């Protein structure tokens, strides 16, 4: 690889790493002050355990070999991923770079789920859930779509059929979003929900998190070109425009429906736009990202209200934003994909002279992912529930998860704090 390409992918990897603390603050700010540290730790836990699991086995399962359904063990423990420093101009280190960059995605994917299970999940259950979910859900789904691309060429069965997922709309957002739904159905509602309100305890933290997420998402999407080239540039532009359009439209929906243009609405819309452009970032062009972001902003603004009707307590709207937003973005590739613009070989979308074929493939890939992820996630949680339980006690929920799960308090600003025991 060229130094310029290496530089871009390394920076992108660092940006994606930074997204997880950003997500932690985004979610943590929305949470109540007595649960914010639990929320931060659910996210940081992903930063601790996933890299280890990833290099031991995850990367190998998700990407190695030339199967249709799952990788082999060739790259476990980072074996066979050589570099030679002097060979940087060639392909030296390319696989290690891939293991790094894709490892960052593996970190943030389960972290997304934490927003749904907020305020009531046992931390020990979460600690077990994350690595299990990576190995049993995330790795297979990744392989179905991307398997083989780091070897001799695409062999994953969904990828081979022709479905497209540039930076992880199906693999990451739809996948984590539907897993979140399974999790909240099994966990049950928080005490008092939905009667009792849970306004965000710190909107500035939410907006800071939003800023970090947007910033990092350029690495997420444009870095997925795995080179500093025209595709990266266009993916960057798409990310920029979809986020703006998503935030704008969600804000306007709230302005019309509820009377005000709110910070939380805009933050949610920006994230919805980013989620939706993720699968198509390297496949669409021109004004398309605006339509994709706007569609996500519009639909997700309504989708987050569903939970009150349907009665599932998706605390911070992971289903409404990531599942719905990811699905929208993934399906819209079927309309907007523009191979000509990129000078690349993938099917064109309906509106760019293609047939219905791509849309069908997008539909299939998501349907398969939804069914698989929902079922396996539920099985994992049922197993953990049987073994150690997944929900904190009523008293622990009342006193807050920060104290009960982590023996810590988020803020000690006043004069009446605590003495050493």
């Amino acid at each position, binding site marked *: 690889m060229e130094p310029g390409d290496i530089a871009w992918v390394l920076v992108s990897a660092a940006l994606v790493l930074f997204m997880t603390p950003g997500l932690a603050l985004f979610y943590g700010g929305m949470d109540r002050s007595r649960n914010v540290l639990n929320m931060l730790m659910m996210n940081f836990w992903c930063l601790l355990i996933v890299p280890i699991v990833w290099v031991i086995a995850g990367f190998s399962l998700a990407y190695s070999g030339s199967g249709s359904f799952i990788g082999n063990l060739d790259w476990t423990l980072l074996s066979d991923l050589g570099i030679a420093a002097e060979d940087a101009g060639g392909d030296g280190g390319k696989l290690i770079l891939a293991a790094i960059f894709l490892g960052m995605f593996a970190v943030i994917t389960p972290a997304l789920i934490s927003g749904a299970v907020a305020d009531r999940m046992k931390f020990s259950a979460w600690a077990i859930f994350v690595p299990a979910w990576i190995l049993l859900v995330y790795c297979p789904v990744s392989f179905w779509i991307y398997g083989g691309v780091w070897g001799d060429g695409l062999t994953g069965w969904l990828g081979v059929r022709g479905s497209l997922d540039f930076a992880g709309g199906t693999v990451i957002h739809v996948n984590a979003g539907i897993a979140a739904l399974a999790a909240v159905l099994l966990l049950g509602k928080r005490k008092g929900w939905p009667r009792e309100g849970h306004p965000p305890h710190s909107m500035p933290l939410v907006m800071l998190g939003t800023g970090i997420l947007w910033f990092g998402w350029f690495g997420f999407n444009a870095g997925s070109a795995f080179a500093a080239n025209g595709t990266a540039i266009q993916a960057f532009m798409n990310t920029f425009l979809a986020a703006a359009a998503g935030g704008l439209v969600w804000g306007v929906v709230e302005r019309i429906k509820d009377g005000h243009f709110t910070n939380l609405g805009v933050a949610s819309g920006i994230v919805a736009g980013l989620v939706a452009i993720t699968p198509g970032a390297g496949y669409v062009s021109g004004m398309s990202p605006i339509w994709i972001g706007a569609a996500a902003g519009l639909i997700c603004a309504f989708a987050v209200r569903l939970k009150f009707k349907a009665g599932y307590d998706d605390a911070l709207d992971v289903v409404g934003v990531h599942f719905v937003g990811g699905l929208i973005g993934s399906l819209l590739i079927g309309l907007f994909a523009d191979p000509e613009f990129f000078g690349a070989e993938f099917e064109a979308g309906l509106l760019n002279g293609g047939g219905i074929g791509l849309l069908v493939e997008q539909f299939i890939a998501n349907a398969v992912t939804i069914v698989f992820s929902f079922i396996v996630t539920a099985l994992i949680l049922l197993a953990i529930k049987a073994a150690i339980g997944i929900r904190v006690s009523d008293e622990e929920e009342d*006193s807050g998860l920060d104290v009960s799960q982590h023996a810590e308090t988020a803020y000690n600003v006043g004069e009446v704090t*605590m003495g050493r*025991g």
Partner: protein
Amino acid sequence: MKLVTAVIKPFKLDDVKTGLKDIGVVGMTVTEVRGFGRQGGHTETYRGTEYQVDFLPKVKVEAIVEDGDVEGVVEALVAAARTDKIGDGKVWVTSVDELVRIRTGERGADAV
């Protein structure tokens, strides 16, 4: 007139507000306080050092009511704030010599 003061568990505030409204109390003043009592506290740990948290979050509710309403208000407060678990708090009553509504200058019972 009397000032009825209650120290309650924070998550009971909504119930107390509703309970008082239901019996016709139209105003109250609420303060975040920390309580020390039989309930005891909990322990937190920072880098291996233990901290004892003795003062727990409580909410203080103050309502001025006419003498005749005191008993009803106290009972409503107790009923609304009770969880039967330690740390439910106290209600106490003190005498008010004079009361003025700032907006109008009204005094006494008219000012409640």
